[in-house]
């Protein structure tokens, strides 16, 4: 059964697009058929992160308006057979999206994929509400600081009231994904700690993604971090999160600062 997952946050810049790409790739690596859909009409980024920006011909708006067929707009990932991208339009704005258009596209995608991951734009307006409208599950991305946590709370309220599932009186499954978790700053008490965030949001935790240069590096080469360097800390955290999404029970690892002991430093590298 296809699952529609929205990745949303309210606040911008917390890592929705990065998380969409990383989770999508991680699920696809597990053999699931995945499409990542960019709902950020007018400010699209997912195509860049996925490294598909040079192959975009048709987009979400074209399909919604019947100008192009869905199969024409879908772009298959070059690295993973089962990973697809439905890009957004960069030249239009969010008003070009209609409820009916989104409904039909999602219904169509449901017949073709196991996972439909919708990358929501920031904000709480039309773009964001349409991205979550037909979702079955939601990943709420937040950073460990107060403003993004409050925005996440706002978005959770909307997930519980503005989605089709909520309007039918059903419970939409929600997860919190904490990104840009800085281990050294957390140790110094400069960030909200995990327990505080979970207490405020009252939603189960999907994963904790550490702040890392690897994320930026992966974005710059147009690759989801889980594909670019699968052994890196953030990639491992995303892979664990993806496993939890598909129903596995995986122990939660709170990233801790890796201090190399004195002996490790001395004998860290072995000469050939």
């Amino acid at each position, binding site marked *: 059964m296809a699952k529609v997952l929205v990745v949303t946050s309210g606040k911008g810049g917390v890592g929705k697009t990065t998380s969409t790409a990383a989770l999508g790739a991680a699920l696809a690596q597990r053999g699931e058929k995945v499409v990542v859909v960019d709902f950020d009409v007018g400010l699209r980024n997912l195509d860049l992160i996925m490294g598909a920006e040079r192959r975009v011909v048709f987009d979400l708006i074209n399909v919604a308006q019947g100008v192009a067929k869905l199969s024409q707009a879908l772009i298959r990932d070059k690295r993973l057979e089962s990973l697809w991208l439905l890009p957004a339009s960069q030249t239009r704005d969010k008003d070009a999206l209609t409820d009916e258009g989104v409904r039909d596209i999602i219904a169509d995608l449901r017949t073709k994929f196991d996972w439909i991951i919708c990358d929501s734009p920031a904000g*709480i307006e039309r773009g964001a509400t349409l991205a979550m409208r037909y979702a079955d599950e939601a990943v709420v991305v937040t950073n460990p600081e*107060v403003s993004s946590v*409050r*925005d996440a*709370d*706002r978005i*959770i*309220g*909307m997930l*519980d*009231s503005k989605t089709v599932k909520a309007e039918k009186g059903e419970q939409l499954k929600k997860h919190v994904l904490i990104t840009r978790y800085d281990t050294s700053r957390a140790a110094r008490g400069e960030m909200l700690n995990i327990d505080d965030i979970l*207490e*405020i949001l*009252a939603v189960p935790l999907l994963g904790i993604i550490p702040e890392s240069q690897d994320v930026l590096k992966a974005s710059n080469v147009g690759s989801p971090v889980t594909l670019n360097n699968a052994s890196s800390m953030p990639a491992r955290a995303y892979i664990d999160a993806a496993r939890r999404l598909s129903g596995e029970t995986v122990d939660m690892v709170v990233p801790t600062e890796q201090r190399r002991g004195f002996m490790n430093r001395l004998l860290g590298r072995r000469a050939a």
Partner: protein
Amino acid sequence: MDAKVEPQRQVMRLRGRSYVAFVFSPFMPIMNWLEEIDATLAHSPGFFAGRPIVLDLSAVELSSHGVAHLVSSLETRGIRVLGLEGIEAGGLDSKLPPVLSGGRGCVVEQVEPKKVEVQPPPPAAPSLLLRNPVRSGQRIVFTEGDVTVLGSVGSGAEIVAGGSIHVYGTLRGRAMAGINGNSDARIYCQKIEAELLAIDGYYQTAEDIGETLRRQPAQAWLDGDILRITPLN
């Protein structure tokens, strides 16, 4: 239309009507008889209230003073005597009830004393129960009564209630109780981190809430025109 209307002379019309009265027949000694009356009254208080009572004094011999005493002692028991029977009218005090004659016996319907209608208790003040957390940006307005939140109230959320507000999680947003002028309304929360508290228009912002209270169970209430916030327990 200013034709004068001649005042017509009203002819007084007399009508006869008969009523059924209870007849009391006191016996000697009067004190014993009064005790019986008292026993009846104790059994069903108000049984004789508002009923016509006639005293048949044929079985007793009482002076005018004695009759007056009996009538007044009945009056203290809430029994008003409509008339007297079986006694000579002459020599009786004119303030006493009139002497009646020609009474005929009849079957008195045993009418149960009217039960005092038990007023159904006024419907309990309606209350609104919210099982889920109130999220940032949500606004709950319930002017009819109390609002109870089982979860937390997020920063940037707002609860407006005509009655009191109960929050069993953390109150981080705004809570406004007693908005219809109910100064007895209170705000209770398990953990206070509120942005604003208001009761009947008197408010305090987070700045005014003492640092020692933060994150503690607390209640807010109106003391005259001062909004007090005190720890619970």
